[in-house]
């Protein structure tokens, strides 16, 4: 965890999470709840699909990556929500047994013009697999509290 506030982030700063392994049962469980398409949910059907086997829902890769990054606690002291996500790209399929980690880099930082208690931080995220291949990238605009003045 950290006690960082908006004022502590600098463009180019980079944060990286440890890896977590996605099991087949995690893929099936998520797909059953949120994205029940045959190539996410049905092993024999997935084998015959254009992906040649089961792949994770792209939404699962996104929420899993988000969870890993939030758990790093970089924004624990200052998060005020998020208005936007842009440039989401699913680059490579994620398969059962893949181990993913997330690298987040500060792209841009500017104080809010209308609300002096917060700032706007644009972060670029990259989800990497065990072969260091980027499987997904996305960019989130975060609202972060400024350091309280003493």
């Amino acid at each position, binding site marked *: 965890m950290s006690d960082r506030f908006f004022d502590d982030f600098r463009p180019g700063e980079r944060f990286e999470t440890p890896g977590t392994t996605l099991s087949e049962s995690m893929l099936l469980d998520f797909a059953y709840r*949120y994205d029940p398409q045959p190539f996410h949910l049905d092993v024999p059907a997935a084998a015959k*699909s254009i992906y040649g086997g089961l792949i994770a*829902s792209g939404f699962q890769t996104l929420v*899993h990556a988000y*969870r890993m990054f939030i758990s790093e606690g970089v924004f624990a002291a200052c*998060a005020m929500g998020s208005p*936007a*996500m842009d*440039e989401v790209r699913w680059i490579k399929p994620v398969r059962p047994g893949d181990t993913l980690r997330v690298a987040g880099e500060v792209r841009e930082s500017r104080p809010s013009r209308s609300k002096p208690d917060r700032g706007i931080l644009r972060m670029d995220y990259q989800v990497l697999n065990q072969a260091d291949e980027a499987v997904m990238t996305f960019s989130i605009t975060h609202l972060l509290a400024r350091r309280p003045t003493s």
Partner: protein
Amino acid sequence: MNECTFDDLQAGQRYTSAGITLTEAAMVDFALSYDPQPIHVDAHAAAGGPFGGLIASGIHTLAICCRLVQLTKPWVAACLGSPGIDELRWLKPVRAGDTLHVVTEIRELRPSRSRPDRGTVLLRHEVINQDGEVVLTFNIPELVARRAGSTTERAPAP
């Protein structure tokens, strides 16, 4: 539901999903798994936070949208996946007890030049609450299979 392909779709078509009422338990459960921040999991901490109470994780609203769309769109069997999302905007907070539905519009249809068996369907989703307020919007292209034997000459809608 099973027969609908790229060739059956037209730009401007709109689909409205069923509604889903989001309970506090569902919000906290999702956030514990995927977005464990106090404004999503701790009602007391959230009461003193920027939204004055617990709000749903934005990626929970996104996941619900994904699920509702899967129940609604008639080309589920022909869908081959998606390369990404653009211009996603969380416009209003979602709170416990809110009922959400999704309106999906086909913005554009682009037959693939390199692969005659598929095309790209550009969709815009709007997630709307019980008061008619749009809480989330985004654009997502989907790859959708063409009907076997269909021609690649089909012109995209203007």
